[in-house]
């Protein structure tokens, strides 16, 4: 019985992970393919770094990647500041009037279809430009603002749920020892919930990095992000360069995720061990 159950579990795991990782794995393999056709393996000349070389000289993709990095970085920092403040307010002032409405409103962007968010932001930017002359046209600025509006909601949820289990007597003890509330926030609360803030930052960065729909609505000429460029290229047929790009992205993401999880597992052990 036990034997069979574990066999079943193993089968599930194998199929589940295969489903998740075979596409990625094949993509990585094909990034070393010499053939111009992504679906044909040129065994005579492969593996090769030919397409890696080509990618590094493709200015269109490099420019788009640089724009994506800029937008994602600014967005992540802004969203973390706004989201942490909102999460703090929601977690702390447990019974202020309108808390429920506010909390529902901050989480609404999580369930709102992206098309609607993108469209409404576009309309807002156009209306603002006509009314006050800012923002002048659409570009990196409008795109970053748009990204912040939805990624902030994710940060809020992450920070709020961490603060919900935060031992309030730590803050009271700090105040008791003479620290004013603002100082308590920066010296006690923030360092202790920092892992949550960091995951919020990474989440916001990732959301912005691979956003396509909202970016398309709010970007302007000359401000195409990487996903937009990739998407338009793929519609004309998949080039092996895209495989290379994907492989590089996956490698970077893997390294960051593994590093951060190791670091967080360590600090979590410290934070949750009873004080």
């Amino acid at each position, binding site marked *: 019985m036990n034997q069979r159950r574990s066999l079943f579990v193993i089968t599930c795991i194998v199929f589940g992970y295969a489903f998740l990782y075979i596409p990625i794995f094949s993509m990585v393999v094909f990034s070393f393919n010499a053939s111009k056709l992504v679906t044909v393996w040129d065994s005579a000349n492969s593996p090769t770094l030919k397409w890696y070389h080509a990618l590094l000289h493709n200015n269109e993709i490099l420019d788009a990647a640089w724009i994506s990095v800029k937008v994602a970085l600014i967005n992540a920092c802004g969203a973390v500041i706004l989201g942490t403040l909102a999460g703090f307010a929601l977690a702390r002032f447990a019974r202020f009037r309108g808390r429920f409405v506010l909390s529902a409103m901050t989480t609404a962007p999580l369930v709102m279809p992206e098309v609607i968010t993108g469209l409404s932001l576009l309309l807002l930017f156009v209306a603002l430009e006509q009314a006050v002359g800012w923002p002048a046209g659409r570009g990196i600025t409008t795109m970053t603002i748009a990204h912040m509006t939805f990624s902030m909601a994710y940060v809020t949820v992450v920070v709020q749920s961490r603060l919900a289990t935060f031992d309030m007597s730590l803050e009271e003890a700090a105040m008791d020892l*003479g620290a004013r509330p603002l100082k308590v926030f920066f010296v006690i609360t923030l360092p202790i919930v920092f892992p949550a803030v960091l995951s919020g930052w990474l989440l916001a960065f990732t959301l912005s990095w691979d956003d396509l729909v909202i970016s398309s609505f709010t970007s302007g000429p000359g401000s195409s992000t990487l996903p937009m460029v990739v998407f338009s290229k793929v519609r004309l047929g998949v080039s092996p360069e895209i495989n290379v790009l994907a492989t590089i992205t996956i490698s970077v993401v893997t390294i960051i995720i593994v590093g951060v999880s190791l670091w967080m597992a360590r600090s979590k052990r410290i934070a949750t061990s009873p*004080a």
Partner: protein
Amino acid sequence: MPKPTDPALKASPWTDSDAKPYVRVEKLTKSFGEFKAVDDVSLNIYQGEIFCLLGASGCGKTTLLRMLGGFEKPSSGRIFIDGEDMTGVPPYERPVNMMFQSYALFPHMTVEQNVAFGLKQDRVAKAEIRERVATMLELVKLGGFAQRKPHQLSGGQKQRVALARSLVKRPKLLLLDEPLGALDKKLREHTQFELIGLQHRLGVTFVVVTHDQEEAMTLASRIGVMDHGEIVQSGTPSEIYEFPSSKFVADFIGSVNIFEGRLIEDEPAYVRIASPELGGIIHVGHGISAASDTVVWAAVRPEKINMSTEAPTATDNVARGAVQDIAYLGDLSIYLVKLPTGKVVRVTQPNTSRHAEAITWDQQVYLSWDDSSPVVVTR
């Protein structure tokens, strides 16, 4: 009971009507919605005291303490500390420190940084901080633990770090919420005496919350017994034990036998109470302030009852019953004696000799007590 050794401090300032209380609480009330967690409490606490707030779970001890610390805003009433009105003053501006029930050590700081935190807020010079922290850690016997993080400490060590952290600023008043709750019995007793010693040396006024009456008796110069948000009696441990003012207090502090009865003779020098529960008359050797023929309760402590197999000569303060149960506790034994009326009386006898004439199960015994032993309460 330890008394303050500082000659500047009176042995019992609460009996002196001229003494100025260090903490004065006036008609303090805290409501959470309809519910009154602390109800119209007035209290004076004097310099150098260890004042224990004692009461069952949920009776409002922590809430009262938190109001003294400034963490909870009173619904009405005032708090004066050292003559100054502190009612609306935030915690970071009060000359008071608190030791939290959960210790609340900062998990991301070392023991040393935890203890230094309060001094840093006051911008004390670095060298002085280092010195005072080191002295404090020596005092609580944690000299070698300065660089540890809180999660690397045992419960008792954490408790001592929390104590050091709250004492390092040399507060005039220290609030302690169940300071020894997390410790095992042996360590707790040991730490109780350490606390008393520390308090003597530093001359700090302590307000200690506890629900352990033994702990309160050991620590306190005075005890305030709380029930449903009110202080029902405050006094020295022996006052509370010997002269409880109500059935609740008598029952809460130690164990006691309570006999309901009717006042039949009410003289200035003595009273007599007819108690159907006892099946006899209780004679009390002092007058009380209650009208004749009212229902009163006589409380008799188990250790004040004599038990013998021979009938005593007196007719009052006597009962006869059968031993229903015996618990041997080493230094003393507890006997439960069932009277013919059905009432079970608790009697404790010290085991002074190893082979006393053994009273055993189901034996008929006579119970009697001195006329100074019962305490009569009217509520």
